[in-house]
């Protein structure tokens, strides 16, 4: 058997503390979706019915995938592989494994590009709240126009302000990323996560104690709206798919970033308890806090019918138009508005810094390049492609990337990694790997769930989404953003797809060069490297 080749000699990074690791992992998971997407999904998918399917998806899909991703990541870390191509090659000793990992490189990079742009809206609106810039736009329609003017969509509006906030957001992201795991990402999580939970708790309490609105509706009627037990919708596949999709988005599984974070752990570190703690923290932010702010506030000021219409019009309208209208009616509304958008900003940035981690790891580990230049180069790429999202937002450019990378791609990556870890690596080895250094014994039933139920559940979602969305979107029979598809949009949509294909080709070439450069033997596998940098063949 030929000798596998040792990795390039870059120093290995590590987490500074366990609580820092948990906060960073939770920060990665807690994102804009917890506060904007979840309440909307719950409200439009039958309330109580959605919650039942949501918790089933959490138990059969979310938590098992969390353990699988921590397991895949830490196993990759044994060979100093913080990127998906290397992690897959460590599991499956086959030349194709590394190329399957291309999906895990495209997704974090493309999602990071448009996610940073959306994240910059939250920073801008936090500032606009403090200075009361949107004050006077007291109707939903006026605030939607305000948002679209900021985005440069309305006739005669400029992109300059949006571009400025995007640049600031991007520089902050890249600066944190360039500081490394413990010096940047962990410090951000230690500051950002407590602020996020503090602001969210204050806002949730303020909303729950709001007096009845103009129509006499109370916040409790908003909670009724979310938790209404409408069992008649349990037999609708769309409700099951919506809840499974929400679990995906909220836990940040299928992204490549959880695995990258887990790769910085040693064999002696726990991942079983850390994984469940991360999922639970995210669920607290989503179910307890996320469900208590936006929809109940909207019900108080717009009534049940108005809130339903807002929820159906989209998450961004709820967060960036409805909430500012609400804040303008409240005492110290500018402070509350700042808290709302600041918490969204912290939710966003703790996720976005995670997204480029596997890409940085790839170039650092395989080419020996320094972290800082890689981070700033990726920042430049993000800026370049981010400009396309800024200027072509109204042409469905962002929606197209969001669908293929941020929706369909997540399930695709999850299917591949689950099959590789549970079927190719084998259930017994996967189970043993997850339990190395574990502080808890995971109930044995989850071994069966992870081996059979999770992959079948994922395949079902992938096939259903392919039939219902992917094929109609690919053939331009349906728009990725759910709106009307016009002829004017076609060149931009085609361009967006071609760019994703180009990313796939470029990453494949880099992977091929890296494997040749480091003389890796796909059949022999990698050499195990301990935390001190010694090889342990």
């Amino acid at each position, binding site marked *: 058997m030929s000798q596998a080749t040792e990795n390039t000699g870059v120093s290995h990074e590590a987490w500074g503390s366990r609580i820092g690791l948990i906060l960073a992992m939770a920060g990665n998971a807690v994102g804009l979706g917890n506060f904007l997407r979840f309440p909307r999904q719950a409200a439009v998918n039958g309330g109580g019915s959605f919650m039942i399917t949501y918790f089933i998806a959490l138990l059969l899909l979310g938590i098992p995938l969390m353990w699988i991703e921590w397991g895949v990541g830490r196993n990759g870390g044994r060979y100093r592989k913080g990127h998906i191509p290397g992690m897959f090659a460590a599991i499956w000793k086959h030349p194709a494994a590394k190329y399957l990992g291309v999906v895990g490189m495209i997704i974090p990079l493309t999602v990071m590009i448009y996610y940073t742009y959306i994240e910059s809206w939250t920073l801008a609106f936090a500032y606009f709240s403090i200075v009361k810039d949107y004050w006077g736009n007291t109707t939903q329609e006026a605030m939607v126009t305000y948002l679209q003017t900021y985005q440069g969509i309305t006739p005669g509006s400029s992109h300059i302000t949006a571009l400025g906030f995007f640049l600031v957001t991007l520089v902050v992201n890249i600066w944190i990323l360039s500081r490394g795991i413990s010096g940047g990402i962990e410090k951000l999580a230690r500051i950002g996560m407590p602020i996020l939970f503090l602001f969210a708790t204050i806002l949730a309490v303020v909303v729950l104690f709001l007096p009845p609105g103009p129509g006499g509706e109370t916040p409790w009627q908003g909670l009724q709206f979310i938790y*209404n037990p409408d069992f008649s919708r349990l037999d609708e596949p769309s409700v099951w798919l919506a809840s499974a999709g929400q679990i995906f988005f909220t836990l940040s599984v299928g992204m490549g970033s959880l695995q990258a974070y887990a790769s910085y752990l040693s064999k002696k570190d726990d991942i079983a308890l850390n994984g469940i703690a991360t999922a*639970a923290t995210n669920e607290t932010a989503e179910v307890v806090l996320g469900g208590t702010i936006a929809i109940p506030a909207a019900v108080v000021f717009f009534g049940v019918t108005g809130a339903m219409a807002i929820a159906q019009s989209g998450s961004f309208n709820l967060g960036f138009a409805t909430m500012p209208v609400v804040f303008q009616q409240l005492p110290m509304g500018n402070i509350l508005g700042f808290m709302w958008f600041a918490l969204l900003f912290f939710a966003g940035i703790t996720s976005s810094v995670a997204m480029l981690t596997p890409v940085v790891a790839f170039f650092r580990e395989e080419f020996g390049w320094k972290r800082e230049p890689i981070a700033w180069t990726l920042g430049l790429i993000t800026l370049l492609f981010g400009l396309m999202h800024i200027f072509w937002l109204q042409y469905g450019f962002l929606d197209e990337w969001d669908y293929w990378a941020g929706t369909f791609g997540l399930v695709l990556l999850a299917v591949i990694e689950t099959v590789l870890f549970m079927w190719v690596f084998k259930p017994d080895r996967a189970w043993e790997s997850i339990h190395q250094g574990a502080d808890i014994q995971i109930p044995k039933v989850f071994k069966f769930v992870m081996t059979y139920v999770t992959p079948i559940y994922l395949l079902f979602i992938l096939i259903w989404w392919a039939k219902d969305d992917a094929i109609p979107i690919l053939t331009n029979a349906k728009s990725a953003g759910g709106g009307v598809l016009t002829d004017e949009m076609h060149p931009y949509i085609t361009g967006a797809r071609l760019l994703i294909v180009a990313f796939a080709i470029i990453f494949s070439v880099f992977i091929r060069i890296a494997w040749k450069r480091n003389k890796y033997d796909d059949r022999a596998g990698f050499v195990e490297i301990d935390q001190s940098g010694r090889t342990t063949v």
Partner: protein
Amino acid sequence: MTTGAIIFMALSWTFVLGLTGWAFYRLLTHKAHHDPDGIGPATPPEPPARGH
């Protein structure tokens, strides 16, 4: 709120907060593998005996 909605909300919150509370209780009280940098001992050092 209707009784059904209250029950759903109570069950959801209890499950989520219970899971979070349990996970962090275990994290803070069981530190057998608290070795994030991977270079420390596999088990934590014994606490000093009384009187030391």
